């Protein structure tokens, strides 16, 4: 378990520097619909997201937990929804998100802001509130606290 009293312990210099810059940039220009909850822990961000007006998730608020690895941005952060997670065909009830940029398609040019916008766009384009068809099986397999980054994801649907 990480402790908030020893923040940034496991981050390289480039990771710390990038995150400080991203935090500063976020404070000046936060992505619309998102609120960063202030803590002293640079390595774990808790972000509140509000569904965009006119979409299925309008006025609903959810929380994202973003954990940065030692070698960020060479490695993607781990991004999950804290329960309760939104009902969406690519979001499992344990908060894991099936979104390629968080895994195979990560690029070090991406930022927390750009991830947030991808997630909001994924929510906004949803036409039906439902769990992925394999939700129960997947969540059962993750019971030992497995990270979504250890899942072998299949990305098959670009539309939602």
């Amino acid at each position, binding site marked *: 378990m990480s402790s908030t009293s020893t923040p940034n312990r496991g981050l390289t*210099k*480039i990771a710390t*520097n*990038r995150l400080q*810059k*991203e935090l500063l940039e976020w404070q000046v220009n936060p992505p619309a619909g998102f609120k960063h909850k202030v803590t002293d822990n640079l390595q774990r961000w808790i972000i509140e997201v509000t569904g965009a007006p006119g979409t299925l998730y309008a006025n609903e608020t959810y929380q994202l937990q973003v954990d940065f690895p030692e*070698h960020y*941005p*060479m*490695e993607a952060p781990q991004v999950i929804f804290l329960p309760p997670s939104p009902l969406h065909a690519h979001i499992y009830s344990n908060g894991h998100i099936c979104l390629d940029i968080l895994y195979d398609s990560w*690029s*070090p*040019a991406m*930022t927390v802001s750009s991830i947030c916008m991808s997630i909001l766009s994924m929510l906004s384009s949803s036409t039906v509130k439902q769990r992925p068809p394999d939700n129960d099986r997947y969540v059962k397999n993750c019971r030992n606290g497995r990270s979504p980054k250890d899942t072998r994801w299949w990305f098959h649907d670009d539309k939602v």
Partner: protein
Amino acid sequence: MKVKVIQWHAVASWTWDAKDELCAICKLPFDGCCTECKYPGDDCPLVWGACSHPFHLHCIVKWTGTQNRAHCPLCRRDWQIQTETQ
């Protein structure tokens, strides 16, 4: 009139020929250096991909080193260093 130059003091400035101002990986200016370096210039050079995207050499090498098949962080094309100035 004859002028005798006793001493002259030259001042020069340089800048990288990179259109984007910030390295997309470390988000630091190209005219500065990457996170790990102290001095910009020859100590912390830029490289351009065949796709024409520039990065600090030290930054892109850290990225390509983690990949089996490296892609440009900005356009996802296969990463190859541009060999000739175009």
